């Protein structure tokens, strides 16, 4: 089943898939970054809570910081499970833990986004005037808006750097939870800027600026939730494999088919591939030339040829058929290119 595992052994694995050096290094780095994110968030959440006062925008930003705990924790938990080897009870392994982590994170984003939209929207409709008075440190008395702005600037910048560091790792590892986390982190400066604008608005005597800023932050949380929920649900529904951002079909699908078609005894080949989390499960249907049944060695070589393409392709079965089965391969029946406009769904 897994010659590569047997040859190297002892390295980092996802189930029975041995990770190449690049992916092993990326995984270790991603785990360090996830812990780093959690540490940073603990500081950030405390800081923002201390200065938050009655600003709606600060409250929304704080809620987003709290929610930001979910993706790195989901990632750490999911990766822990995904590395377990398949068992008799779990013959496909534990890769789906990534999908579950992603779904949980998406549902949390969606719920909190909806709650905050209602909360800040009703504040706007009821024309709530947020009071922001003074704070004092010893004998120094100053407007409480200034420490809020300072907290937002301080907590707004590091997530962007963390997000930028995580994004390439998410692509390398084909990890959607990590991708969602990186994407949220990268967008964090928008939240911080929104809050700063809201507070400056309060200072300028524009009572609506704060609620308006909070509303925009909430809408962006809600959108993140909807997009992630769609991609996560799609993956759990065994949608065809897509790139990690869920935007387009994964190029490996075509590459596997091409590699199989290039074999001398193969006339046509088509695969259906589902994304298990980090790794793919592949069922390849091959039509031998002249209707001649292939030998065991030919089938074995075909499998080796396909799985040598990418570390993600390991769990692959080759099925010789007289003709491509339309009921299992809707893409055979579909007009060429018909499905291409609706990726990841």
């Amino acid at each position, binding site marked *: 089943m897994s010659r590569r595992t047997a040859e190297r052994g002892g390295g980092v694995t996802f189930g029975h898939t041995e990770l190449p050096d690049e992916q092993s290094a990326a995984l270790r780095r991603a785990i360090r970054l996830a812990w780093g994110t959690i540490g940073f968030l603990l500081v950030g959440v405390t800081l923002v809570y201390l200065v938050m006062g009655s600003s709606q925008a600060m409250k929304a930003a704080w809620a987003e910081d709290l929610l930001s705990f979910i993706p790195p924790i989901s990632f750490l938990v999911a990766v822990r499970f995904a590395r377990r080897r398949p068992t008799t009870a779990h013959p496909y392994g534990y890769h789906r833990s990534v999908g579950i982590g992603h779904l949980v994170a998406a549902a949390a984003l969606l719920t909190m986004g909806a709650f905050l939209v209602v909360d800040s929207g009703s504040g706007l409709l009821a024309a709530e005037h947020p009071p922001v008075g003074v704070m004092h440190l010893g004998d120094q008395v100053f*407007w409480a808006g200034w420490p809020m702005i300072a907290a937002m600037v301080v907590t707004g910048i590091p997530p962007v750097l963390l997000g930028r560091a995580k994004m390439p790792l998410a692509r390398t590892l084909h990890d959607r939870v990590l991708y969602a986390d990186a994407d949220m982190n990268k967008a964090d400066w928008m939240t911080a800027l929104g809050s700063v604008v809201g507070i400056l608005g309060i200072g300028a005597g524009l009572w609506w600026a704060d609620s308006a800023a909070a509303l925009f932050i909430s809408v962006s949380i809600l959108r993140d939730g909807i997009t992630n929920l769609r991609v996560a649900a799609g993956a759990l529904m065994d949608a065809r494999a897509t790139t990690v951002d869920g935007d387009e079909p994964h190029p490996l699908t075509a590459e596997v088919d091409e590699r199989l078609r290039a074999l001398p005894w193969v006339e046509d080949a088509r695969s259906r591939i589902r994304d298990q989390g980090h790794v793919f499960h592949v069922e390849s249907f091959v039509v031998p030339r002249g209707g001649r049944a292939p030998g065991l060695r030919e089938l074995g070589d075909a499998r080796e040829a396909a799985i040598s393409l990418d570390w993600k392709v390991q769990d692959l079965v080759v099925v010789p058929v007289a003709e491509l089965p339309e009921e299992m391969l809707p893409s055979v029946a579909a007009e060429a290119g018909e499905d291409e406009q609706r990726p990841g769904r």
Partner: protein
Amino acid sequence: MARTARPLLTGLLVPVALAALAGCSGGFPADPDGTLERVTGDVLRVGITDNPPWTEAAGGAPPGGLEAELATEFAGTLDAEVDWTVGSEEVLIRDLEAGELDLVVGGFTGRSPWSKQAALTTPYTTVPDEQGKPEPHVMAAPLGENAFLVRLETFLLQNHRDVLP
């Protein structure tokens, strides 16, 4: 994921930021309804409810007690006369919300349930309550009138921090 939302967000936030900066000319923070400006050199409308020793507003006598004195002194710093309204807490807070009062005093504490209806000041003094637990004392100002609120809180903190009734 939120990538499509960002240009939209920027497009809406920038005008707000510019408006915020444009509003800076009239003092910072500013009052949406101009309370501080209106009170200065004119009349400070204070609601008072009887709660000795913080406030005494019973009978026909002029209001007294620590917070009544503080309110009078604060009005003095704004060259304003005090116009007293005596009533129950609920009635006074409702008047404050409606913009018919500028300040309500009545020995309110940090645990006051009126934080949705009024801007409670930062505590200016903390004294033990009847059970001996420390209790922070606050006054009630109109919501969102932040120039007025900041002036009041600064006055309380700088001139009367930790006063005892």
